[in-house]
């Protein structure tokens, strides 16, 4: 009944909350497939594909933070790799100097990124639309250049020889299956957490900002406060995802903050489906696999990825899961009516 009083928007579009609700089974399918993959890989004694899949999930975490901003709030971040890289560096330094605790490294990574996110957010959320995109791009560019030239952080070499992290007694990040499952659990928690957040009043505010932030102010909410909060939340998620990176790879390099990482995260989100939260995870998995497959034939895989991305933007701007969500939603409304 509540839906009846809502005025139709000029362009009938799926709101993020609806899209997330419609794709719940697609999300469960994703995590089920991931678990099945872990069992198969374990029984075959594989390491390479487990590591690749873990990397896909880590970048999937970054893509989730981009979707929180782009799909759920309507802010396009072109420099999210900044927070991913900060988390990775913080985690690497923690593991190197404070001991091998997974939890401390993860917390430090998330906190450092969140703190920098407050400062960066205060600068970035003043602007909107394309200005926001360009400022987030510039911020990441500047910080990555500083890191690239700071000898204390290993300059262009980054930090190598990061010791493995101990998740639980006897479970180390060097175990491919265990760390894949840990990363999967992390990503699942972030996904479920964000899907819940979008149901809360705060999530509704974000969706309102996406539609029209001026109207949000008219009904008594401060869009700036919500934007800062979501920016810091996205920074913390990106930082926590980044914190997992050195645990798996054993090193961090300034390339983690470069535009290519930010750009790839946006590609993962767009190809997978903006505003669906599960789309970015499908996107990250699909594109990581694609890069690995094409990369074994040619080093010019960016041409293929770029063309695929452009085709998606032109032909299917909602992305793969976005279309699936719209389809499911339409069928549901038909059955309900």
């Amino acid at each position, binding site marked *: 009944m509540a839906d009846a009083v809502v005025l139709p928007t000029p*362009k009938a579009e799926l709101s993020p909350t609806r899209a997330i609700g419609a794709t719940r089974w697609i999300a469960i399918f994703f995590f089920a497939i991931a678990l099945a993959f872990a069992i198969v890989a374990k029984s075959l004694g594989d390491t390479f594909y487990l590591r690749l899949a873990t990397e896909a999930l880590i970048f999937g975490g970054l893509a989730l933070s981009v979707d929180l901003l782009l799909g759920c709030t309507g802010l*396009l971040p*072109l420099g999210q790799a900044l927070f991913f890289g900060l988390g990775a560096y913080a985690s690497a330094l923690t593991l190197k100097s404070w001991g091998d605790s997974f939890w401390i490294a993860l917390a430090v990574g998330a906190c450092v990124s969140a703190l920098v996110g407050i400062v960066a957010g205060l*600068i970035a959320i*003043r*602007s909107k*639309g*394309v*200005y926001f*995109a*360009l*400022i987030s*791009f*510039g*911020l990441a*560019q*500047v910080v990555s*250049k*500083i890191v690239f*030239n700071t000898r204390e952080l290993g300059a262009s070499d980054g930090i190598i020889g990061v010791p493995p992290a101990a998740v639980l007694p006897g479970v180390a990040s060097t175990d491919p299956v265990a760390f894949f499952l840990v990363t999967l659990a992390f990503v699942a928690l972030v996904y479920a957490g964000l899907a819940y957040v979008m149901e809360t009043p705060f999530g509704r505010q974000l969706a309102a900002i996406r539609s029209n932030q001026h109207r949000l102010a008219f009904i008594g909410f401060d869009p700036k406060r919500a934007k800062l909060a979501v920016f810091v939340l996205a920074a913390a998620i990106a930082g926590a995802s980044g914190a997992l990176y050195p645990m798996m790879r054993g090193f961090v390099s300034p390339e983690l903050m470069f*535009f290519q990482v930010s*750009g790839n995260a*946006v*590609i993962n989100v*767009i190809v997978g489906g903006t505003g669906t939260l599960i789309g970015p995870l499908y996107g990250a998995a699909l594109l990581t696999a694609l890069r690995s497959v094409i990369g074994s034939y040619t080093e*010019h895989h*960016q*041409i293929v*990825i*770029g*063309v695929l*991305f*452009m085709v998606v*933007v*032109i032909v299917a*701007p909602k992305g793969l899961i976005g279309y699936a969500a719209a389809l499911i939603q339409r069928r549901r409304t038909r059955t309900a009516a």
Partner: protein
Amino acid sequence: MDWLHFVLAPQVINGLSIGVAVVLMALGLTIIFGLLDVINMAHGEFYAIGAYVAVALIAAGLPFWWALALTPPLMAVIGYATERGLIQRVFHSGDRHTLTLLLTFGLSIVVEDVLKLIFGANPLRIDAPIEGATEMLGLFFPNYRLFVMLFGAMVIAAVWILVFRTSLGAMVRAAAYDRHMTASLGVPVNVVYAATFAFGVALAGLAGVLLAPIYSVFPTMGTDFVLIAFSVVIIGGMGSIKGAVIAGLVLTQIQSISSLWISPVWSDPLLFGIMVVVLMWRPQGLFGRLGHG
């Protein structure tokens, strides 16, 4: 006095020769945004294509001057095709800003890798067509840099005249202000759009050729350079021609002169800091948009 003469003056001249190239880039960006509402993320790659086109033409045996004359029209053709073939496809969708930005971003990835595929990742060089240096007031200035300064200033003046003093420019400004009204007055707005995009791309290509003998030519050369151009456009005001010229010259001077005291590593953070301060003071940039007031 000596310090002014021997330390500061050369920096100012160096800054100016780069400054005009930055202004050419920023003019392209700002005109495209002012008219089409498109953030061209591939602008830096068009700059790189311009430099590579010159490299290819010179390798084919043409002198530099022919490359300088032929590159902008070739780039304009590429720009026209890009607007017609790609940008128009998402131009009329609801979320034009984001979609065109994403589309040109995708294009930039493809172009960068295509350049790498054709020319290799290693930096290439073009010899400066004008050798030697001129002595002025007891200082030596490389002739080519002086040429870039004068030629660039002439092009900037020509752009100004074209946009503000010709009927062609009036069409562009009118379309930027109100496309529907302009279309109903008989202006072929779609052609104006494509031509303006082509013009902006040609300017980026021209900047690429002009700077090719000063810097080396490599596939990612546009990525760093475009950041300065974006800062210029944001500070000057998106879509403002006056803003692009003034902010472009001032920012490159600040960058050039500050390099006397701070390491070049810090010049990007400095520019960015200035941008943030300007945005806090005037979120829309210093000057107004093309066709508005």
